[in-house]
């Protein structure tokens, strides 16, 4: 009996330690971690900035930045929103794809394409600090 109790006590203490340990791991991140994560994000923003000015996304040499310097007048903070010409409520990525297919005369990207995420990261970064207003025309 005594042996059984000891094992049970050990199990409870062990589980508690595990939980506490797990909790500590989840909650604590260092300045260095934050710096690394921000660096990862900014590397994708930089990739997006390069794509934004690149003639390679379409077929006619036109780049996003020709009409949208600093990604201005793209308004990522207003999506999802009703876009009457697309017939419904769409995401910012749908509008990027519309531009790729029309003014750039190219093919649309998959919504989870790395290039799409980079374009979205860049345009959204240029709009940082502006309040979210989903649905705003």
């Amino acid at each position, binding site marked *: 009996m005594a042996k059984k109790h000891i094992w049970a006590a050990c199990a409870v203490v062990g589980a508690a330690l595990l939980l506490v340990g797990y909790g500590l791991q989840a909650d604590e991140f260092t300045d260095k971690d934050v710096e690394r994560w921000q660096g990862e994000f900014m590397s994708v923003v930089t990739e997006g900035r390069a794509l934004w*000015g690149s003639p390679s996304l379409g077929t*006619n*040499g*036109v780049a996003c*930045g*020709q*009409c*949208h*310097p*600093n990604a*201005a*007048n793209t*308004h990522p903070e207003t999506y999802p929103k009703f876009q009457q*010409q697309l017939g419904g409520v769409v995401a910012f990525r749908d509008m990027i794809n*519309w*531009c790729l297919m*029309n*003014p750039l005369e190219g093919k649309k990207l998959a919504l989870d394409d790395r290039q799409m995420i980079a374009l979205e990261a860049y345009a959204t970064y*240029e*709009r*940082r*600090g*502006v309040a979210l207003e989903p649905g705003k025309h």
Partner: protein
Amino acid sequence: MTKTNLNRRDFLKGAASVAAVSAIPLSTVELAFADPAKNFTFAYISDSHIQHIKGSRFVNNWDRGLIRSVAETNLLQPEPDFVMFGGDLAQLGTKPELDHGAEMLAKLNYKTHAVMGEHDYYLDLGEYWSELFGPQWYSFDHKGVHFVVLNSILTFDEWTYDRWPTAEQRMLEMAALDNPNGSPFMVGETQRAWLAKDLSGVAKGTPVVVFSHSPIQKIYKGWNFWTDDAEEVQALLIPFDDVTVIYGHVHQIQYNQIGNISFHAVMATAWPWPYPRAYAQAESHMPKITVPMNRADPFFERDATGWQFINLKTGRVDMKYNLYNNSDRTVAYNPETGRPEDSKYQAEDDRIPPQTQY
């Protein structure tokens, strides 16, 4: 209103043989003057950005903008005395682009003058453009008005001559509007000295109209809505009673009044640009009196582009914006307030939702 209707009828009469007459956005042309000998009109086409793909292929979207402006300008009644082309005929300054653009402009039925834009210049420093269009700065007199054309898109010698390994790279660096590797535009000492001399023979009561590609005022440096020596150029213009500066580059409606100088921007035929206030990360100095153009609807390829019909009946500019796929606008000098004003939307209460730019 009767006058406007009459004018529209006159215009329609002039264009009666054209099947597409209902599509032509020229319903507000005014032509009745007290002393017709003193009055004249001219048209202004700008920023066509003809872009070569390869071989005989060019970006169709930009081609259509210029072709349409030329076709419509040729239908004007009364005929304009001349046409100004306001710069950025090409996208990357190449021979194929300049040739293709010049060929389209050659279809104009009127004497055509041209202004140098940065997209025409920074590949070969304006050499081929000058072969096609002549000097980069000059003046001429027409019916009592002194016209001056400036090349306002020059920059520091070090940037132009020493910084870039190839001419192609120099062109690309200047062509990207928001490129931090770009450099501020300027008229420069040589032209300012020439301008001072040119104006020294002009009576102070003579209306002076200056054509430049960049604004001869400082709006937003980040996109070169800016001329670095704007104040020095303005100082040369201040002694004259009636001065107007008309500029391209910004692809949007802008107007301003600084002292005796009225400023008017013209639309592009290629594509519209955002107002600087739409860039959330920078401060800009947009003229407070400007009522913005309508926000562009990208689903209409030609929306927020167009060309201008300019009336100089008082020695001041009366600017009609002929806007494809949108309502036309008129911005005219108001002698009572001493500044350009929109004929319909100037008062805060008269503005419409699409004019809110954010």
